[in-house]
């Protein structure tokens, strides 16, 4: 399969070319043919009466009678260079002509009546049919592609089943584990697979079965795709990558067909790596959802399960899948023999961030590489992708100044931009500005005086992104769980803006909208999920399951990160 992906395109073009060539050749041939029959050079066209006059004058020795014309010549031989005369005979017929010729002793030659060739009847039909078929093929080709293994030969409906995974490509720049930083644990686990891909025989000899399915889990931007690429690059094997959503098509069964195709291709290319991104788009728990299931998705999922089972243990094909919602995956995907190895990627810690920054900054002209230390310090909660974005923003800043290197100022500005959004120019009335200042000062004071709160970073009343002002705090490193007093302090900080307005200005405004919403969410989580209310106790009373993503620390950490980043 890898070598016969879309044979349609070049074929189609050459066929079109052939049709055009054939057409012109036919026209040309007909043209030439009609001229070749009679040698018209040296022939003078005259009127019929003149011809008759010539005969009567006795100047004619030869006459050639054709269906609708008469050619006469004064010489004994037609081939001679004497002038010849030609005239069209009247269709009414001239009974005198032949006797006249006989009388003057003209040698009469009659040309065979030119019969209508069969070709002229068939040719138009052939042309019409040809054009029709050609169009039809083209249209089908556009729908389908080439029916690959379907057996109808290349060119029919095939693309539908051939799948849209990107085929291994040798020329691609190799990604190795050296390009992955800040995910040491995950790297170690994936690195084990490299040996298996490199020398599968060694594992077979001792009867070891190597995991075929590896599930990479982690928040967005933590490098799941990168890790998969690095595995393929490190082991130097073909890398088949696709996204879960690409399997799905309007027609039921197409997804399953694509899965089959891809696994088939990967098996042929073994040892190889298959990477399915966003597995949760097809791997969702089956049979859920109201109002009927999702046939296509389920079929695709079933096919993947079947393919994973179908690997013989000696086939060196490793399937990697990435998702940031492992909680919604079908349990059957996670059982041993399928995606049994789970690799967790976390948001990088300080040293991890530093390592990531180092990798991305390699190509950038930094004024002082040690600036990155400060950036790594000040970006807790940033993922690898965030950091890459930050450096890119800094580079853009530097380019805007037409500077040759990126200074610490650029980096700081880029971080503010990534964390808080772009500065917005917004005309704010002095009175409103005062209220804004009061509001933010309330947040800031509460954060400052509450023990155990996150350290403050910056407070601003310059509108950035979607917020009008902001109190920015830096996340404490590595908290995976949130202690109760910390959450209480969060609530206090969130509501302090409103409290300040109320206390210092005497009334409140709509500016606290988002604060109240987030505080309520947090408080509800505290009561209904984490049992932090003595009255109710440790009972799970959450309302809607689908809004929260499973495991304990996920949403909580996320909520708090949001608090910090966009605190308003």
């Amino acid at each position, binding site marked *: 399969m890898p070598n016969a992906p879309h044979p349609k395109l070049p074929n189609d073009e050459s066929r079109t070319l052939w049709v055009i060539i054939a057409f012109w050749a036919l026209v040309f041939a007909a043209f030439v043919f009609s001229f070749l029959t009679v040698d018209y050079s040296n022939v003078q066209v005259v009127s019929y009466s003149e011809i008759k006059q010539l005969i009567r004058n006795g100047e004619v020795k030869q006459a050639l009678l054709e269906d609708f014309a008469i050619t006469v010549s004064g010489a004994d031989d037609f081939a001679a260079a004497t002038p010849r005369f030609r005239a069209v005979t009247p269709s009414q017929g001239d009974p005198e002509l032949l006797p006249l010729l006989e009388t003057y002793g003209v040698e009469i030659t009659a040309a065979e009546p030119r019969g209508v060739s069969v070709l002229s009847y068939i040719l138009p039909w052939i042309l019409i049919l040809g054009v029709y078929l050609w169009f039809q093929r083209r249209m089908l080709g556009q729908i389908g592609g080439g029916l690959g293994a379907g057996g109808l030969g290349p060119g029919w409906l095939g693309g539908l089943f051939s799948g849209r995974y990107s085929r291994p490509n040798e020329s691609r720049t190799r990604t190795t584990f050296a390009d992955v930083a800040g995910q040491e644990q995950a790297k170690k686990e994936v690195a084990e697979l490299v040996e298996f891909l490199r020398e599968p025989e060694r594992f077979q000899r001792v009867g070891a079965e190597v995991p075929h399915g590896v599930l990479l889990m982690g928040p967005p931007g933590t490098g799941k795709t990168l890790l998969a690429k690095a595995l393929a690059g490190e082991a130097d094997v073909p890398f088949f990558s696709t996204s879960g959503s690409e399997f799905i098509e309007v027609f039921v069964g197409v997804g399953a067909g694509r899965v089959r195709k891809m696994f088939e291709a990967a098996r042929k290319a073994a040892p190889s790596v298959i990477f399915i991104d966003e597995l949760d788009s097809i791997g969702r728990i089956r049979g859920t959802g109201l109002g009927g299931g999702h046939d296509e998705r389920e079929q695709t999922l079933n096919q993947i399960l079947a393919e994973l089972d179908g690997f013989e243990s000696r086939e060196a094909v490793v399937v990697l899948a990435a998702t940031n919602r492992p909680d919604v995956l079908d349990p059957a995907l996670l059982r041993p023999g399928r995606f049994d190895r789970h690799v967790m990627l976390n948001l990088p810690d300080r040293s991890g961030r530093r390592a990531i920054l180092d990798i991305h900054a390699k190509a950038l002209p930094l004024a002082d590489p040690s600036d990155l230390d400060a950036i790594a310090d000040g970006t807790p909660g940033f993922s690898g992708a965030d950091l890459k974005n930050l450096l890119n923003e800094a580079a853009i800043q530097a380019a805007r100044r037409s500077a040759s290197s990126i200074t610490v100022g650029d980096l700081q500005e880029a971080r503010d931009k990534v964390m808080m959004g772009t500065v917005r120019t917004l005309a704010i009335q002095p009175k409103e500005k005062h209220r804004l200042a009061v509001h933010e000062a309330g947040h800031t*004071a509460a954060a400052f005086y509450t023990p155990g709160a996150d350290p*403050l970073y910056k407070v601003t009343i310059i509108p950035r992104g979607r917020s009008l002002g902001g109190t920015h705090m830096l996340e404490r490193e590595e908290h995976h769980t949130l202690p109760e007093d910390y959450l209480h302090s969060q609530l206090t900080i969130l509501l302090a803006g409103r409290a300040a307005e109320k206390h210092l200005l005497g009334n409140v405004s709509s500016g606290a909208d988002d604060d109240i919403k987030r505080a309520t969410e947090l408080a509800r989580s505290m009561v209904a999920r984490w049992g932090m*209310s003595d009255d109710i106790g440790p009972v799970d009373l959450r309302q809607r399951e689908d809004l929260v993503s499973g495991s304990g620390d996920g949403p909580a950490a996320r909520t708090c990160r949001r608090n910090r980043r966009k605190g308003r």
Partner: protein
Amino acid sequence: MAQPREHADETAARVDEAVSTLLKDAEAEATGIITRHEKEVRALIDALERKEVLDFKEIEACLKSVVSVVTPLTRKNEDDGSGM
């Protein structure tokens, strides 16, 4: 799409009540903090209106002027480290 709740309406009401108690307590505490440190907060508001952006050192200069606060010293160092 409405999913059936797995607990009684009465429990839900108690949850709502607990949530609002939590929030009211938090607001009371926030008001308390602002009342206690009103002078400092007003200084902060002035500074904020003048400069529009304040970093941690400037915030500290405003808020720490009069009384020493409960903030442990270690935290300040940590802030200095991670703040910049």
